[in-house]
């Protein structure tokens, strides 16, 4: 269990859900796996390590998720107590009244009793009582989690999240940009920490669901419906989110991130975002790269083509994702202006611009994610892959192998022949082209 021990460093020590008892798994990986298989009866005890992770609903970082967790604990406690009581009686009855001898034919049967109304009614009343205990906090939480509380409404920030097959668009209606409407980003939602955020939920195709477990439970993005949710991050941080409604082939890899920034950082980020796409000095369209550029060596290029979806994570990134995000905001050292210029040219030639917007540059499409600041994102392809050179390179050369069914491949790289119905290649990206495109995209900070 490599992950277990590794994660023990990466995250807070796993917490045992039934109390304050902390149970850190220090056992050797293989040993622990073998044990958990043998000691089935003790599974719950061994599962302390299973309540912690990037999408754990136990590690809440905001009042909405906290409220929901509290309700969960109430239901959990009531259930556990009732279960222990009833199961104990059941176990007692089973053991106590068991007959060991197989043959009962000459034994008189037990008394043929038919019931006892008093016990029945007593138990019914008891059950109702238990349910009331659950119902009261449930009702309170339903109203609390529904919308930003009245008192905080003035302070609330508003964003609109829109689901696409299979990525998320985020709009900032409060941040209007001269000439191009509201600020738009994709797949990574940046919010102010400590402020309630109301997220309007929309979709352009099928039903998706917006779920950031550590901040708030999910609410669906329903076509022709104006759903919304609210959340608040207590502290700045980096949070995992995922689409939680089956939405077709790549539902499993429709992920996103939420980054909460302190008030000052957020303001700075907004200011940066509102400016047009970054242009690296000396990269005019048309400039050709110096001949004979050496092939980029990918030190850790470990993907084989036949693997449709390979690991999208690296340990270094996981250890400090927020720091990695902040790092990403900085301009990369060693930018190659010629390569970038070539990439920018290719971006138009290869029809990328028809689907993607790079505000201030040539792109104007809206059917794909906005790429104005793609270089500053920690992830690509709907939160699936870490935004590294290798991953982006791979995404551009063979998107179909990264994300099954994605609409950049189907409808972009390949299009359907309206007569035969077969998919035919429209364009492809070779390694050299990909390298310059990667350079260009990574220059967009």
């Amino acid at each position, binding site marked *: 269990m490599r992950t277990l021990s590794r994660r023990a460093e990466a995250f807070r020590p796993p917490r045992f859900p039934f109390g304050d008892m902390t149970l850190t798994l220090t056992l050797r990986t293989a040993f622990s796996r073998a044990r958990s298989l043998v000691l089935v009866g003790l599974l719950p005890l061994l599962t302390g390590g299973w309540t912690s*992770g*990037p999408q754990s*609903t136990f590690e809440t970082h905001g009042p909405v998720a906290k*409220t929901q967790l509290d309700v969960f604990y109430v239901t959990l406690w009531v259930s556990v107590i009732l279960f222990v009581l*009833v199961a104990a009686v059941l176990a007692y009855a089973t053991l106590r009244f068991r007959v060991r001898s197989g043959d009962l034919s000459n034994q008189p049967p037990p008394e043929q009793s038919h*019931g006892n109304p008093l016990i029945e009614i007593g138990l*019914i009343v008891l059950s109702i009582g238990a*349910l009331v205990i659950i119902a009261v906090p449930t009702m309170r939480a*339903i109203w609390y989690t529904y919308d930003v509380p009245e008192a905080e409404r003035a302070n609330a920030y508003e964003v609109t999240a829109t689901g696409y097959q299979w990525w998320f668009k985020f709009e900032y209606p409060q941040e209007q940009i001269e000439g191009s409407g509201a600020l738009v980003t994709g797949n990574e939602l940046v919010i102010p920490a400590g402020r309630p955020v109301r997220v309007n939920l929309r979709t352009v195709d099928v039903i998706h669901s917006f779920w950031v477990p550590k901040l708030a439970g999910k609410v669906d993005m329903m076509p022709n419906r104006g759903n919304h949710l609210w959340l608040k991050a207590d502290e700045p941080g980096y949070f995992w989110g995922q689409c939680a409604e*089956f939405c077709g082939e790549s539902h499993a890899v429709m992920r996103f991130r939420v980054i909460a920034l302190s008030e000052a950082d957020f303001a700075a980020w907004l200011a940066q975002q509102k400016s047009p796409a970054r242009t690296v000095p000396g990269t005019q369209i048309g400039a050709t790269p110096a001949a004979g550029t050496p092939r980029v060596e990918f030190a850790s290029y470990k993907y084989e083509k036949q693997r449709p979806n390979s690991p999208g994570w690296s340990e270094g990134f996981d250890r400090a994702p927020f720091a990695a995000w902040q790092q990403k905001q900085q301009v990369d050292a060693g930018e190659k202006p010629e390569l970038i210029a070539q990439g920018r040219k290719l971006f138009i030639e290869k029809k990328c611009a028809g689907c993607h917007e790079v505000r201030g540059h040539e792109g104007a499409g809206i059917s794909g994610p906005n790429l104005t600041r793609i270089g500053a994102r920690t992830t690509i392809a709907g939160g699936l892959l870490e935004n590294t050179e290798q991953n982006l390179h791979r995404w551009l050369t063979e998107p179909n192998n990264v994300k099954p069914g994605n609409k950049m491949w189907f409808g972009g790289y390949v299009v359907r022949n309206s007569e035969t119905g077969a998919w035919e290649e429209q364009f492809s990206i070779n390694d050299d082209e990909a390298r310059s495109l990667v350079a260009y995209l990574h220059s967009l900070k």
Partner: protein
Amino acid sequence: MQAITKSDFIGKDTAAAEKRPFVFTRPTAKTGLVSWLTTVDHKRVGLLYGVSSLIFFLVGGFEALLIRIQLAVPNNTFLSAQTYNELFTMHATTMIFLAVMPLSAAFFNYIMPLQIGARDVAFPRLNGFAFWVFLAGAIILNVGWFVKSGAPDVGWFGYAPLTSTAYSNQFATDMSTDLWVMGLQILGVSSVVGSLNFIVTIINMRAPGMTMMRLPVFTWMTLITAFLIVLSFPAITIALIALMMDRSFGTSFFEVSNGGLPILWQHLFWIFGHPEVYILILPAMGIISEILPTFSRKPLFGYPIIVFSGAVIGLLGFGVWSHHMFTTGMGTMATAAFSIATMAIAVPTGVKIFNWIGTLWNGQLQMRTPMMFALGFVWMFMMGGFSGIMHSAAPADAQQQDSYFVVAHFHYVLIGGSIFALLAGIHYWFPLIFGRKVSEAWGKFSFWAIFVGFNVTFFPMHFLGLNGMPRRTFTYDGNMGWNSANFIASVGAMILGIGMAVYFVVMLYTYFKGEKVGRDPWGARTLEWSIPNPPPEYNFAVIPTVHARDAFWYEKNHRDEIEREKAKSAAEEESHGGIHMPSQSWFPLLAAMALLTGGLFFTNHNFMGAIAGGVVLFIAVYLWAWEGPGGYHLHLDKDGNPIEPKDGQAHH
């Protein structure tokens, strides 16, 4: 006074049949293929249901194992996304509609008429029809695996607009969703027709003295389940019709760009879907309510309350559907109302649990294999019920919905509940049906393998869900803290698979080679055990008269009185012309086949073919009505063997 024959035809006996047109000469084969194809015997129909549903259970289980292999390790590439989506859709559809429901129907068919002292169901030919239609629906659902379009891949509740032509399956012809729609539609016909038959049978075909409050609990649960089916299936039928029209005739019920509201699909689906889950569990509860008293040698504790709570569960089940939609933004009032209503269901369910424990109390518990499964049921169902209660708290559910916590919940109630009870039922009634008994050692071994495997598979899923793992994901990353739980679950699934395999091998072995047993091997309490095993075609040589709730228990304790009474009834019945038996018929099969071909043509958008199927269906039904119920009379010798009439033609 009540020793009248239980025939469902009124008036004269049919005259001699020589001159009937050829199509109406009724099949009379008692053995061989034709006898099965034309059968109207509720026991044979029950067996047909049983065997086909068990085959589908294996198919569904096989699909589940593939799912678990894919999820055993992160970023696995064993299955493609597309295949995975097809697998979980078909796994669920198969398990629910082709395994658990028909397996319950198998017991309804086989056991229920025996329990109420009837010779047959009210409409024998309709009963055969229900089975063949079921088979037609099952075939349509599964042909996707063998054709280019692929199997349905929209999830078992097929949320619009993913099912619209625009979004489903971009790689092939988009027929797979049509197959799903048509398959479910046809299965609905089968279920509703079958249930109407059961309702009439239970209300109208009871032996004299078998009042409603003396019905065995399994029969009561059959009745309630049948009501749930006839009242909930119309909702999904309408939803499917709307979807079908969207896909084939350009309407826009769920077409978003024209203003369609996908949430309407969800409402209609769950108006059906929630009662459906009680359709899956109530028969199981009925079986448990038979097994526990038998092996405790005590009557069921609080019979009236168990029956009443079953009815209350059924009724409340119609008012909670939106708890599957807590995350759709229904608004506070609706969410609160459905949350409370859902919690309320815990009360009647709890009552059942308490009464089962009450049944054990002070009993003489014999730990036979059926009893093991039954006790396993009570434990496991309770756990599933409690996770259901956790779901019912809407704010908590916001974190659990569409996560593996739900998967854990419903497998606990579906496997720990329904499947455990059905497996218990197979063990329990096996001696009655085949006259042989499963070896205790092997039975218990399979129980423990299944029990352990089941818990190892599904208990970790609670944690997976709460730890943020969404369901219906063909892959997951290695850094999410889900690896060990998933791996353990997959190992558990293999153990579970081995347990199941052992179970079925043992059953097959027992069928051919098992220990032969006599009448009433368990010391049971209800009427089905009062007849020889395997039961003769006519069930009861003499229709019993019922004097008490546990009718057979009473019989065993009042032998003389019963003997006298039986002799009297037998004479009376003979004076009425003997035992009336329904005639076999080809038309149920023919009508179902017409539905199958018509349905297949329709999914292929070949509407002429569909209409042709409809015409054949009409003709088959017409001829069916034409040939009439028919029927013949049996006379028994004193060993209970039918006396053949001299000309060898017992039929009309």
